[in-house]
């Protein structure tokens, strides 16, 4: 990689051991990908909690803190594994909880904003077209690239922290124009009137093209020969829909970017989105394709004792919809329902009365966490006798398998019905 005089000096230790180590690490990653240089970043978002880091990660973080590592651009944190208010009730481990507090303290000492949210793009920071950032989790990255036209690779915890400490990241992947062009076309021909439908689209496309550099271009127009058809949505997609689509594409397909013609900033037309690429595939997603997704889940013992709205955390608008769904009703005895959101959204939901409506039904609302990374989740599953996990998030349905849940995707309204009736159809 070509280094600037400043970077040479950082490598020589002019800004201390922590900066030197971080840049060395970034250099190794950059060289793997053939990056030619570093680009400055304005914002970093990192995943770091005791469940993902383990004791080894915490020991490393403490050692790095002792080297006076300090974020030099705003560094926010992703959803973590404890909501301290609910930890005891969930039977989470007190020793791990103490480590989590220690870890948070360590990050704050490094100048991090411990915001604990995976929807930073909805609640904290919206980078502009062409702005370079260093973000993780994957849902934040695909949203930044696709919807804002900002530029980020998947930056895992150590990589995002290194970027915050050095203020730069190696220029490869989605920082470069050549990886941002569409590689396949997806024609949407289904109504897509529930968030789960958008996730299901992400599942269909992601499973078929598991590749970081696969960039789907969504369009609602007819085939090449035929005239443009009316938009099947008859409206423009909203942020929460694009969030569920992106999260699912990233999860099932390891994808970091998509375009939607007439919707996202680098896709004024199909041709512009493809940028001269010949699409490797053309997929049509109609109502029947969506129904096949929903019909494809094994219902196992048909129990409906766990319903989850998480992964990503709920926006205020999703909280409003849940308040309308659960308001005045009760969760079926024997069924547990979890919602996860950010501290800010929960606070706003309380002010607006949504939280009371949701909690009044017997739903547990957790803040600052994702259900999937809750500390002790595998043990919690056994202790509660959970077999099936029902969710409207295609992402969480995909990722929680290692904890041996049998997962089932259902539309939001169906999830509410299942939660209140205890019956899985």
């Amino acid at each position, binding site marked *: 990689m070509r280094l600037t005089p400043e970077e040479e000096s950082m490598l020589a230790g002019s800004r201390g051991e922590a900066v030197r180590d971080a840049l060395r*690490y970034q250099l*190794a*990653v950059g*060289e*793997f*990908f*053939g990056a030619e240089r570093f680009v400055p970043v304005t914002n970093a978002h990192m*995943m*770091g909690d005791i469940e*993902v*880091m*383990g*004791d*080894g*990660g915490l*020991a*490393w973080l403490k050692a790095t803190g002792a080297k006076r590592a300090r974020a030099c651009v705003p560094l926010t944190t*992703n959803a973590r594994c404890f909501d301290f208010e609910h930890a005891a009730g969930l039977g989470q481990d007190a020793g791990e909880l103490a480590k989590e507090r220690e870890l948070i303290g360590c990050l704050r000492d490094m100048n991090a904003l411990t915001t604990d949210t995976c929807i930073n793009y909805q609640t904290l920071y919206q980078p502009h077209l062409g702005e370079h950032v260093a973000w*993780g*989790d*994957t849902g934040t990255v695909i949203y930044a690239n696709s919807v804002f036209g900002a530029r980020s*690779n*998947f*930056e*895992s*915890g*150590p*990589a995002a922290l290194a970027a915050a400490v050095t203020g730069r990241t190696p220029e*490869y*992947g989605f920082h470069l124009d050549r990886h941002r062009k569409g590689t396949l076309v997806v024609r949407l021909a289904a109504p897509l009137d529930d968030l789960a439908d958008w996730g299901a689209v992400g599942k269909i496309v992601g499973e078929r093209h*598991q*590749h*970081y550099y696969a960039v789907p271009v969504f369009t609602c127009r007819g085939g090449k020969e035929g005239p443009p058809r009316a938009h099947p949505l008859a409206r423009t997609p909203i942020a929460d829909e694009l969030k569920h689509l992106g999260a699912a594409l*990233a*999860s*099932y*397909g*390891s994808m*970091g970017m998509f375009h939607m013609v007439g919707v996202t900033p680098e896709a004024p037309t199909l041709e512009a989105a493809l940028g001269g690429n010949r699409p490797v595939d053309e997929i049509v997603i109609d109502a029947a394709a969506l129904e096949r997704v929903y019909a494809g889940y094994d219902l196992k013992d048909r129990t409906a004792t766990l319903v989850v709205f998480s992964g990503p955390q709920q926006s205020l608008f999703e909280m409003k919809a849940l308040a309308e769904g659960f308001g005045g009703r009760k969760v079926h005895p024997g069924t547990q329902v979890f919602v996860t959101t950010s501290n800010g959204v929960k606070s706003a939901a309380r002010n607006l009365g949504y939280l009371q409506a949701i909690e009044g039904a017997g739903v547990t609302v957790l803040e600052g966490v994702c259900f999937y*990374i809750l500390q002790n989740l595998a043990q919690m599953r056994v202790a509660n006798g959970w077999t099936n996990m029902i969710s409207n998030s295609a992402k969480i349905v*995909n*990722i929680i*398998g*290692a904890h*041996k849940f*049998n997962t089932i995707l259902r539309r939001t309204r169906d999830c509410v019905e299942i939660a209140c009736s205890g019956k899985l159809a």
Partner: protein
Amino acid sequence: MTSPLATIKVARAFGPVVEGEAVVSTEGFSPRYDLDRWTGLISKPGHRLEGTNIRDKVLFFPTAKGGIAAGWAFFDLKHKGIAPKAFVFGVTNPVMVQGAVFAGIAITEGWDPPPGEVVRTGDWVRVDPARRVIEVLRRAG
């Protein structure tokens, strides 16, 4: 030096030279989605390698699956003493590379020929990142 029985060229590589028993998967991998990170067993129900232990193995996967959390996971596996020797991916993503570099575990991307043609689970292989090759040294059993 034993002359290899077969050689796979890789496009990109990082890490030390390592040798180990090959595990060749036709399904992609995520240390978060598919793995029990306390035992090192692939635990996702229905994964084609379900029940396989990854410790000290050279793992061949066609693809990487999502998951930013994987960036810490490899370091954690190493800390727990259950890390594999190397990851050999057909196509990977930055998280796997960032995680492997962070943990000091060998990782490669891109292969020619595909491992399915020249290496089987149980074969003994050497990964040489600097030379960008993977060599099959001994056949299983």
